[in-house]
């Protein structure tokens, strides 16, 4: 990640669209500090009542899994179909389950 010396840091923006829903990533922006990031996020990502709450996180503080790890991390779940309710065939007489 090459941050040039003049540039303000990059922040990832998360918005809660409605009370009761979780925050969702909506994009990113540059800002000198967290307060400015929230203010700018308000201006660019919630001009049409898209949100009731904003999180901002410095992009460099996020640790992400890499695409190379995809198989190691997520493939083992493939053969564990018994973790899904549809794996279990039950007689039709069984109600409310």
């Amino acid at each position: 990640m090459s941050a040039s010396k003049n540039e303000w840091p990059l922040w990832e923006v998360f918005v809660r669209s409605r009370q009761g829903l979780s925050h969702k990533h909506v994009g990113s922006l540059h800002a000198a500090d967290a307060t400015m990031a929230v203010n700018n996020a308000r201006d660019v990502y919630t001009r049409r009542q898209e949100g009731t709450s904003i999180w901002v996180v410095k992009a460099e503080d996020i640790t992400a899994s890499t695409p190379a790890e995809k198989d190691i991390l997520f493939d083992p779940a493939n053969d564990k179909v018994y973790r899904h309710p549809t794996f279990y065939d039950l007689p039709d007489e069984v109600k409310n389950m």
Partner: protein
Amino acid sequence: MTQEMDLNQRFEDYIAADQKIEAKDWMPDAYRKTLIRQISQHAHSEIIGMQPEGNWITRAPSLKRKSILLAKVQDEAGHGLYLYSAAETLGITRDEMLDALHTGKAKYSSIFNYPTLTWADMGAVGWLVDGAAIMNQVPLCKCSYGPYARAMVRVCKEESFHQRQGFQVMLNLSNGTAEQKAMAQDALNRWWWPSLMMFGPNDASSKHSEQSMRWKIKRFSNDELRQRFVDMTVPQAELLGLSVPDPALKWNEETGHYDFGPIDWSEFEQVISGNGPCNRERIAHRVNAHNEGAWVREAAAAHAAKVAARADQQTHAA
């Protein structure tokens, strides 16, 4: 080598399966470069596009129209930001992109190098320019690069009010005095052909198109989109009681499309290579705004550094 082949195969499979490519996924260099070029040019167009309309904010005919225009120009700034952010995920910095714009290395849509001479131009720009932009942008919501596609979904949601408010301006003028109607007709006359040019060169001479279609960055060809725009817009002009400045324009019963006259590509070439009516003015204005904002950016950065240092000291002291 074989690893690169595997990665390339996976990339191709993703594209074939209409799966999105995400920022950290492996991608061919040429795909990355094409996207950086296209997305940053798109961002520049949004930012430079604020100028022709910004020109009329202080002279809008009513407070309502002024608020609407202000909101539209603010939206365009937002579009620029979404797109710069999308381009940054590909490993280019904001500063590098701005440099390219300010030094004339990067291009932006040639339409914004035309002047906005009368209030009717605010109508014509919203109706035609934003209309053509929507035509181009809707398919980009499905483009293969995830961050670009998501940015375009946001843009398109905001874009439709731009076109509607423009059409309404044209409608009011067309239903107004003879003078107002003439003003609307004059604006249509001047913006029609440049709007058709917004779709880019004819398919036969479009150098980037084919590869972009294969990569599913582009979904429809320039000529296809242009034809759709003409088919959609001509009936709207009729509704306004205005005439499209093209003597060759004619409904073609057989094809189910409008036939239209040839585009003056030499004008397009002139404007895109820097010799349009407003190219110099647009860039000079942008560079000036950037330079005049430098002290704000520096002061904010210095303030943030000072606050961070003070917080740091306090944790060490505790």
